Each structure stands twice: as C-alpha cells, then as structure tokens.
C-alpha cells in the first residue's frame, strides 16, 4: 500500500537524520531515489534546489513534494506526518527528561561522534548531485560526455560562494540564468570535449 510505504520511508528519514540542515539529504536520496525510485536523480536535485529557495526544512519539503507526486495531497500529509513523528516522540521525551534532570551529556557525546559521518554522507550526496549535473540523470561517467558548460557554472558558483558574501539563493539563481543564456546562445545540446 502506497500510503504505508510513504509513511514508513519518511519515518526512517525523520528518525535517522541527525544534525539538521543538509543531514537529511543523504537519507532522502537513499529512500526516495535508491530504494523506491519515486524520483530520479534529476528530479531529486530539482527538489533540493527548490528546498533551498523556499522556507522550511528539507525533510518536510521532500515529504510534501514526493507525497503529492506519488499519492496526491493525502500522500503528502501521510509522508509529512511520518517525517515528524520520530521528532515528536524523541524530542518531547528528551525535553521532559531534561526539565527533570538537566543533563544532556551522553546525547551530546553521541552527536559529536555522528558529526564527521554526517559530513561525509552530505559529501557523498553532493557528489551524486554533481554527477547528475555534469553527466545527466543516468549517472554514467565518461570524460568525452562531460557537459563543460555545467562544469563552468559549477566553478563560477563555487568561487562566488567562497570568495564573496552572496547568498546561496542568489548564487543558485545566477547558475540557472547562466545556463539559460548559454542555451539561448549555443543551443540546448551540451558542449563537451
């Protein structure tokens, strides 16, 4: 049953994404793209892009987006509830324990251990997004097929992010505009080696 599958998938995303922000991204990719194939890698990347440009956590945005695509508004509701249910239980429990004992040490130690793993998982997810951007959704890497315009846009965006104080949203929009301009000038076909 699709509602149950959506619910369970997003329940896992909610239960295992530690560290906020991008930490949910590798889990969402794992469940949505790899396990269930509800989105392909290009759609997943679009989803991450849309999430970046709108308010709201990535997990909630994904639950709504995937839920609607797969099973309409009910699907979106089911997925959203799934993604927040673990938080509701765990956070209220911890808050209750904290308000009684005022001690969070074990939790924070475990979080410190998770931190480097979360960074590495975000890096992995980032790499699959770049593979999609440079070589297309099927993920087959071959040097002659590299889309040089996309590589160029990536380098420009990366340098702007590192060297200037431009906001990520502005940089992403600029990336989109650059691609649009190049498509208007050189046509849609990719320019490769």
């Amino acid at each position, binding site marked *: 049953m699709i509602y149950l599958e959506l619910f369970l998938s997003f329940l*896992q995303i*909610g239960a*295992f994404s*530690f560290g906020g922000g*991008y930490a*949910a991204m590798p889990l969402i990719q*794992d469940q949505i793209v*790899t396990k269930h194939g509800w989105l392909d890698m*290009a759609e997943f*990347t*679009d989803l*991450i*892009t849309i999430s970046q440009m*709108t*308010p*709201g*956590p990535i997990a*909630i*945005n994904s639950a*709504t987006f995937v839920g*609607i*695509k797969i099973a309409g508004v009910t699907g*979106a509701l089911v997925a959203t509830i799934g993604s927040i249910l*673990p*938080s*509701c239980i*765990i*956070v*209220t429990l*911890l*808050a209750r324990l904290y*308000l009684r004992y005022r001690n969070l040490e074990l*939790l*924070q130690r*475990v979080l410190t*251990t*998770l931190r*480097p*793993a*979360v960074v*590495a998982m*975000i*890096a*992995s997810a980032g790499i699959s997004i*770049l593979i999609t951007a440079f070589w297309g959704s099927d993920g087959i890497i071959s040097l002659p097929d590299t889309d040089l315009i996309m*590589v160029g*846009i990536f380098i420009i*965006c*990366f340098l702007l992010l*590192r060297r200037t104080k431009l906001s*990520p949203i502005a*940089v*992403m*929009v*600029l*990336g989109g505009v*650059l*691609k*649009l301009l190049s*498509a208007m000038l050189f046509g849609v076909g990719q320019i490769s080696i």
Partner: protein
Amino acid sequence: MPTDIDLYERKMKMENRKNVLIQIFISTLYLSAFTFGGGYVIVTLMKKKFVDEYHWIEDEEMLDLIAIAQSSPGAIAVNGAIVVGYKLAGMIGALVAIVATIIPPFVIISLISVFYEAFKESFLISQLLMGMQAGVGAVIASVVCDMGAEVLHARKISSDIIMAATFIATCVFGVSVIYVILVCIGIGVIEALAFGRREER
C-alpha cells in the same frame, strides 16, 4: 463549592493559556514562513522572540532546549518548535507549534509541485533548473568544505577516520546511510561510557 473568585481565577487562567497558545501559533507560523537558511537560523530567531522579546523562557534554559532540538533526529525547525511549545504549554503547546511550523512549507511546496509538473517541459524552466543543479552542487560543496574543515581542525584522529570511512562506504560502496548512522551511534555510546568512566577517576 467554588466561589465567584475561584471561577474568575480559573477563567483568567484559561484565557491566559489560550493567549499563550495563540501567541505560540502565530510566532512559529511567522518564523517558519519567512525564515530561509535552515533550522539553525530558525532556533536563533525563536530565542530572540521567546527569550528576549516575551521573556517567557530563561536564557540558559533556552540554550539547553536548543541543544535538545539540535541533537535529536529530525528537522531542527520542527524540533525547536516542539521544545518551545512543550516548555510553554505542555503537549498541546508542542502540537500547536508543530502544526504552525509545518503549514507554510506544506502549502508552498504543494503549489510549487503542481507548477513543477506543468512547467518542467518548458524550455525556460528546464534550462533554469538545470543551471541551478550546478549551483546547488556548488552550495553543497561549499557547505562540505566548511563542515569538513571544522572536523579536521578538531584534531581528533577518530573523527577523521570516521569521516573517511563513511565517505568510502557511502560514495564508493553505496552502503545505506542508515547502517552508517547506527554504527556511529554505537561507537558514540561506547565512547561516551568509556570517557565518562575516565573522568570519574
């Protein structure tokens, strides 16, 4: 027998509680709708609102509540809403805060996904989205640089090993991230118990 004064007091209490709930709802709805840039930003704004502006929560307590929100699994914005709502008005408060936090992204993304399906095929939108894929790749690369540097600067060899091993496992061998997280939680608990004992001595 309840006197008139008792009844009045009870009525005032209920009024007060209703006001607190309404205030929680409006504040979290507003924060959720207008905060770009993720959960870390939202909890800071929550602190500003509930500690500095309303004085409903004490400064130090709020810092610990934020720590709970950040160290629990799930979205930090949702977790932050839960701790604040729970602290101010118990379970009902938490529920009100969650609903208010979810409404804005739910509505916005619902609308966008309708347009997304319709406009994906258009030349303009498809090219923009494609270029933004390279852009979002750059944003993630930049975030990873900052986070990775932070881990390396801590000069803790076990952290470096965990980071390298996780990267190889997920990127090269395609190991499911859930297993990696479970293993790391295990290591963390063992480490915490070992460290705890050492400090006791």
